[in-house]
């Protein structure tokens, strides 16, 4: 299972506490994880990436294993530790005040 940590506002929106556990078919990539996340929690569609272009929203970042993966290809494999559930995939709202 893939572990995903959402920022507080999106946990509220999705009505979840703590980490989200997702089953992902095939290669574990940003795209496949986000597809699975949006399929299970449709209310998150459009909050992390554009509906049409699938581009990451500018104030959203993706971290894992102490690395910033925000600018990696959405189809690049995520670290093995994310794929095997040892480490979570972190969705982070950029520090931008407000």
């Amino acid at each position: 299972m893939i572990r995903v940590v959402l920022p507080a506002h999106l946990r509220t929106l999705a009505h979840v506490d703590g980490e989200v556990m997702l089953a992902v078919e095939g290669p574990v990539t940003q795209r496949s994880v986000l597809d699975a996340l949006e399929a299970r929690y449709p209310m998150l569609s459009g909050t992390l990436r554009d509906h049409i272009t699938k581009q990451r929203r500018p104030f959203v970042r993706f971290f894992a294993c102490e690395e910033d993966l925000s600018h990696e290809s959405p189809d690049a494999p995520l670290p093995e530790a994310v794929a095997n559930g040892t480490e979570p995939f972190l969705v982070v709202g950029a520090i931008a005040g407000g």
Partner: protein
Amino acid sequence: MSKVRVLAGTRKGAFVMESDGKRERWNISGPHFAGFELYHVKGSPADPNRLYASQSSSWFGQLIQRSNDGGKTWETVGNKFVYDGVPGTHQWYDGTPHPWEFKRVWHLEPSLTDPDTVYAGVEDAAMFKSTDGGQTWEELSGLRGHGSGSSWAPGAGGMCLHTILLDPSNPQRMFIAISAAGAFRTDDAGKTWKPINRGLHSQTMPDPDAEVGHCVHRIAMHRSRTNTLFMQKHWDVLRTDNAGELWKEVSGNLPTDFGFVIDVHAHEPETIYVIPIKSDGEHFVPEAKLRVYRSRTGGNEWEALTKGLPQSDCYVNVLRDAMAIDSLDKCGVYFGTTGGQVYASADAGDTWAPIVRDLPAVLSVEVQTLP
């Protein structure tokens, strides 16, 4: 006894305030959607328990929320706002072409007759319609396709479609307003649109009398007299008596004719309200006094309403969607400030009292009159 429900959208959530017909004691719930900007919350005239809310943030974009129980519980509905075709460009602040980009929903206007039909006014300016309770949205692209879109430009708040008026006497007719493009009218339920800005004069434009480009802040209509509209423009308060074919200025003796809100008394079609703001460079009330101005003559002659409002050291603004009027016998008038106060008058503006004083900055105020 009748009740009222006030819906306030703020910079950090939505609040629902209910009172009986006396409008003296209020039950306040919220914040709903804490931490998000709530540009607008509005109830369906056809089903007062059906509410729609525009929830957005710079981080997570646009969300639409729907309630079927008067704001006690909410469900997330559709947030896919996709322009029809290639959106093209509008003018940027410096006059250069800038691509059309969806940013947020400023205004939600539920149908007068069907709780599942709702219109959305968005930034960058366009109008969308849902007929399934907000699950899916389709652009009424005839507005953006009017042909003048390339000359529309953003106001300081962005290029927003912020006002939607549905004509209760003619379901084919709607009026909308855009900052900064002007007012438009459709007579075929949104297929085609006509700019209705003749008589507007804006010094901020190369041609002050141009057909489009005016920074209209708000328009208002009384449901019994739908050819008469009132407008608060960037500067100037105006009225039309022929559905926008020609406007005339009615600023009269206002201390300043800059402002955002304008609204009409529930039972007196010639009684209107504005809240003058000092200037476009100083977005606070003049002389540090919060004053609502009322005209009982449809403009030109205005009286200051001050009883119960701060008359010193006040530096708040009142944004364009932040005034509403209920339809009780002695109609109530409500407005919210950027200082977080929501004020109510249960006597058509003669006296005022705060419902609440310390909310986040108020973006919008609506009121429902309930049986």
